[in-house]
């Protein structure tokens, strides 16, 4: 009786994850140890999300996805179905049959990322929440949203150079195509826009998805720490104290025409940006038209929240030890930070140029808001400005470049997709 019981427990124990980790601690290329490291990283990210409140809406599901996907034998996610040529039809097409029949819960949800469904839906919700009024009122500020994409392209070339030098394992198969694709995916972190980064990466370099998403969202949360030193270093006290003229009121007609016109201009020139820019502008048109209030509420609340959960948990679940615990990930984290810093510098320097050209009417601090993290980057401009001059309210002036940054990074994404997809 007792023997049977022990045997039963023994057999059960042999099927547990604990047994799997312990028996394979160093076997299978350090499977057990790597698993433990991944679980530890997931817990650190959970800590950052819950205690430090780093973009918790995304980082929390990402971290939990990472935790659940790395527990042995759970089989909720098989990233290899999406990236390993062995599982792809002819080495590049998804084997839907395999995914539908053998895939776990997260494999099925991940299709929304892989097929490019979630990021545009999030953009729909963002469009419903965005007021382009400050931009329409001060059209010049849209240029700051372009200047702050500098980090995207400088980091892109930086990653190419690393790839050519063979540092960090970029373009491991040694082809120019892979190097370009991976460099573009890393550069787009500098757009400071999570959905855009995910949209580009899932197409160009799906193996890097989790590292890039985690880098993008972590740095977005760190914007209040990353940006102010550069903003102060590059501007003089007098420039930071510039009080800008009040924005003119914008008519409803302009607000309604804006999304339609932007869609026409952007999609005619960069058709690859259509899913992102199109949905962003659809959301904005729903909001500004004022005739579809119910749709607006759903897009910015329920739909966006549902998609955020699916996106977060599946992106986190792609972080498996063999693709995540590499020198590449560390380098992506470093390059991502560089991209954010260069974008900030690009925005502030262009702000200084605009300040000179307009004869001191533009406070260069609003330039840093050209990175698209809305509304954090604009708040940082407001805060740094107010520290210098307590009666200065830069927030609405900074919202112009801020929302322009969203358009700018979506266009940059479209350019990369047009070139390399």
């Amino acid at each position, binding site marked *: 009786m007792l023997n049977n019981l022990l045997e039963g427990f023994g057999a059960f124990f042999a099927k547990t994850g604990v047994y799997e980790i312990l028996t394979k601690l160093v076997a299978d290329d350090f499977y057990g140890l790597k698993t433990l490291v991944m679980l530890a990283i997931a817990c650190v990210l959970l800590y950052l999300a819950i205690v430090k409140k780093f973009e918790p809406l995304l980082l929390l599901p990402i971290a939990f996805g990472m935790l659940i996907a790395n527990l042995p034998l759970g089989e909720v996610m098989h990233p290899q179905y999406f990236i390993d040529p062995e599982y792809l039809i002819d080495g590049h097409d998804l084997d839907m049959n395999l995914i539908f029949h053998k895939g776990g819960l997260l494999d099925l949800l991940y299709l929304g990322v892989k097929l490019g469904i979630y990021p545009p839906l999030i953009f729909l919700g963002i469009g419903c929440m965005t007021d382009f009024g400050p*931009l*329409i009122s001060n*059209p*010049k500020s*849209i*240029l700051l*949203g*372009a200047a702050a*994409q*500098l980090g*995207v*392209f*400088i980091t*892109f*070339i930086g990653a*190419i*150079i690393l790839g*050519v030098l*063979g540092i960090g*394992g970029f373009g*491991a*198969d*040694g*082809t*120019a195509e892979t*190097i*370009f694709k991976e*460099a573009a995916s890393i550069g787009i972190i500098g757009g400071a826009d999570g959905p855009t980064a995910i949209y580009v990466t899932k197409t160009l370099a799906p193996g890097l998805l989790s590292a890039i998403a985690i880098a993008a969202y972590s740095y977005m949360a760190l914007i209040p720490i990353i940006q102010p030193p550069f903003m102060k270093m590059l501007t003089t006290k007098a420039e930071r104290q510039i009080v800008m003229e009040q924005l003119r009121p914008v*008519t409803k*007609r*302009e607000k309604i*025409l*804006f999304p339609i*016109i*932007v869609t026409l*201009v*952007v999609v005619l*020139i*960069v058709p690859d940006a259509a899913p992102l820019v199109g949905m962003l502008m659809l959301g904005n048109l729903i909001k500004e038209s004022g005739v579809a209030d119910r749709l607006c509420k759903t897009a910015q609340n329920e739909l966006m929240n549902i998609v955020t959960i699916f996106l977060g948990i599946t992106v986190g679940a792609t972080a498996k030890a063999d693709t995540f615990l590499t020198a590449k990930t560390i380098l992506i984290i470093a390059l991502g930070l560089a991209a954010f810093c260069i974008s900030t510098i690009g925005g502030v320097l262009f702000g200084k140029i605009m300040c000179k050209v307009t004869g001191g009417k533009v406070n260069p601090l609003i330039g840093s808001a050209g990175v698209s993290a809305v*509304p954090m980057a604009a*708040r940082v401009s*407001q805060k740094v400005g107010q520290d210098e001059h307590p*009666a200065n*309210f830069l*927030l609405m002036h900074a919202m112009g470049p801020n929302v*322009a940054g969203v*358009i*700018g990074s979506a*266009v*940059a994404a479209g*350019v*990369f997709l047009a*070139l390399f997809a």
Partner: protein
Amino acid sequence: MTRYVDFEPAELIGEGIAYTIMGICIVFLILIIIMFVIKAMALFSAEKTPQEPAPAAPVEAAPEPEEDSLELIAVITAAVAAAIGAGTSSIQVRSYKKLDGEAWNKAGRRDALDNRF
């Protein structure tokens, strides 16, 4: 690891720089076009503005001054009482004067901003 399968390092970097410049130019180009379109749109709607009904004239029917100041005095008394923690019976407002409200406006605006973002 195989490297340099199908390219020369210098060529690849040159190509990368070309893409970089092209990318920056396209982003600027598109946003500049949008800028001009917004400006054109502003002209277009500026023409139309006069046709829109002028904002209704301030409708405040001049309130009964006596009534108003009594109510105001009551409010001030209650606020002072609450702030210093005394009963309203021990406070008597003898006179009040409206100051330039800039300080309160600023505090209010800052408060609203902090709450919203």
